[in-house]
């Protein structure tokens, strides 16, 4: 939409300008930021109405709602940025209920002094991700904190989605005998971000896997409505995601290390830093748990989707009162895949 010259005679300087406290103050400056930046990028009928809340048409059925805050540093990394990540993250959380995402809301906490050029890059990336996913950002909020009280930009997104009839996907559904499937390689996002951190001068060819998984999920749910559980292994990686499910369902798991895909550069960087790829964050991968008799069908559907080409059956759910996640190692032994204690820190030796 075209900016209103009568209200804002001078356009925002999106090349050299910075976020100022007035951009969150509720006055003309904030209105201009919303209009010339957010509205221009996310443009849709709900936002154009410029009401406090968006009025939505909701089809009959069950809704799911999810929210996710994003505080990644650096803000821009190979394969993505905080903008597309904030869209993908919430779409994926909605999709993990087997749902079709319908709408998103976005909240920005901006730090005074943050370059508007960077903010525009982030907002454009969000807009592109939302449009590409077919999920509109229908409402939002902006706050500005004083310089030194934020880290450039924090973004919280919230999404709602519609759960198809007959789909009952929840962690507690995992049952002994179920197959565990993983949609692709582990650790790409976490290591892409880590390789960019300023005190690590790595020239690693690793790109974040950030992606919206709802279309993959839709194909999976259509083919196998009886999927028991879906989970995106983000922070804490595969290891923590599986432990969460095991605890919630009161089951154990047996994994096969040889079946778990990890790309070579990720393995190399993890090796170098003393980290375990099982605990490194992913932003475009999912875990699926389904009755064993559907596993091959589900795997074939995943292989047929661009985000599931490297999908693999990595193990099975077992009865275990201790809820242990165990793994047969490539070496021929067994190990526990335990919860992380705090953050994964590099080892000295």
């Amino acid at each position, binding site marked *: 939409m075209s900016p209103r010259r009568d209200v804002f005679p001078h356009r925002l300087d999106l090349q050299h300008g910075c976020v100022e406290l007035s951009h969150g103050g509720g006055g003309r400056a904030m209105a201009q930021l919303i209009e010339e930046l957010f509205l221009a990028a996310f443009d849709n009928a709900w936002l154009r109405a410029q009401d406090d809340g968006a009025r939505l048409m909701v089809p009959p059925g069950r809704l799911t709602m999810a929210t996710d805050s994003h505080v990644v540093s650096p803000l821009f990394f190979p394969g993505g940025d905080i903008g597309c990540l904030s869209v993908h993250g919430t779409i994926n959380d909605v999709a993990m209920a087997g749902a079709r995402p319908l709408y998103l809301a976005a909240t920005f906490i901006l730090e005074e002094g943050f370059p508007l050029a960077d903010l525009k890059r982030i907002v454009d990336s969000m807009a592109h991700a939302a449009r590409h996913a077919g999920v509109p950002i229908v409402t939002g909020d902006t706050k500005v904190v004083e310089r030194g009280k934020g880290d450039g930009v924090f973004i919280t997104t919230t999404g709602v989605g519609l759960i198809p009839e007959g789909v009952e996907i929840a962690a507690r559904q995992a049952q002994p005998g179920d197959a565990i499937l993983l949609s692709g390689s582990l650790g790409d996002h976490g290591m892409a971000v880590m390789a960019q951190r300023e005190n690590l001068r790595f020239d690693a060819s690793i790109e974040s896997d950030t992606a919206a998984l709802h279309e993959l999920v839709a194909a999976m749910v259509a083919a196998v409505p009886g999927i028991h559980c879906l989970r995106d292994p983000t922070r804490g990686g595969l290891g923590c995601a599986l432990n969460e499910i095991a605890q919630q369902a009161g089951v154990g798991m047996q994994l096969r290390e040889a079946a778990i895909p990890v790309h070579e550069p990720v393995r190399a960087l993890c090796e170098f830093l003393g980290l375990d790829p099982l605990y490194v964050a992913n932003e475009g991968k999912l875990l699926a748990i389904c009755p064993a008799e559907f596993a091959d069908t589900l795997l074939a559907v995943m292989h047929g989707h661009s985000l599931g080409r490297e999908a693999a059956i990595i193990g099975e759910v077992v009865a275990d009162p201790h809820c242990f996640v165990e793994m047969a190692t490539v070496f021929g032994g067994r190990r526990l895949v335990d919860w992380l204690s705090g953050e994964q820190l590099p*080892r000295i030796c």
Partner: protein
Amino acid sequence: MKYLDEFRDGQLARGLAARICQETDSTRHYALMEFCGGHTHAICRYGIEDLLPGNVRLIHGPGCPVCVLPSGRLQAAIDLAEQERVILCGYGDLLRVPGARGDTLLKAKARGADVRMVYSVDDALDAACTHPNQQVVFFAIGFETTTPPTAVAIQQARRERLGNFSVYCNHVLTPPALRALLAAPLPSPPRRQGVAQIKGQIDGFIGPAHVSTIIGSQPYEFVATDYQRPLVIAGFEPLDVLQAILMLIRQINANEAHVDNEYTRAVSPEGNRKAQRLMDEVFTIRSSFEWRGLGELPGSALAIRPAFADWDAERRFTIPEIPAIDHKACVCAEVLRGITRPEECKVFATACTPDHPLGACMVSAEGACAAHYHYGRFRQAAAS
């Protein structure tokens, strides 16, 4: 991955494991200690114990520098970090270890202290250059492996007259700790077939990998000559460990005791002379140093030589001796000597967990108890 997959090959592992099974004497026990946390990590992460016959037991030794650091010195580092205009730089897994007052560097950071995780001492030097108005203290810990880089950094600081850089030196030495383990009063080892295992007996050692690249294989000779135990230096890859176990079993079966080197691709008898020279130029041996879990060990740690006193944090700052006593229920000393298994400790996985460690063996992922907790406690559950 080149040079890694070759040392993690499951098929080769099965072949080696079969040979170990063939060559072990089923009428006796073999208690083998891996000294290093790096070996403990490989053993647990790859499930090496599952490939061994039941009469071969691996004892996780004290070679985890984070674990053996006395909590009093850690508390001193935390107190140092909380001083005005101090930046404290340390290695990753040190940051969440509790000090003498239950505090951690991560908690100090949360309260506002400038604590930075570094991957190398170079990062601490860089911080000193970029923050000329602050005091940068490098919290140096580790065995002989991490010591030469600290020496280089101190020399560089002197060359560049970096007045705002200093090192809180907690480097420790491997051979004195090995000697302390062997010298501890324990029942003499049975050397004949058909004798039952004696608790605390160590029949042989898997010798350090990275440490040995620096000091070579010669400093371990006393293990064979003075204490009649075989020692095989091994790399940190799982096939290295299996190969070393086979080499130890062969020596034990033949009633031999000498120092062998499985890790010939990196370790020579004399070690890295240049690194040794660097260490000698910058450091001197302390008369005694406390090891958490093992107590005071004579000649077991390094201090910065007076010639480099200007870069010694212990001289630049007033660092008090903070007494620290481990929890009464803690049996780390017995665990580190193989007298008690981690799961036999009363507080293991109850009061003492990696999130709330009470003793040395639980504080770092490479400690005997933490490794068992993270990787192996399903075995205990299966047995009960």
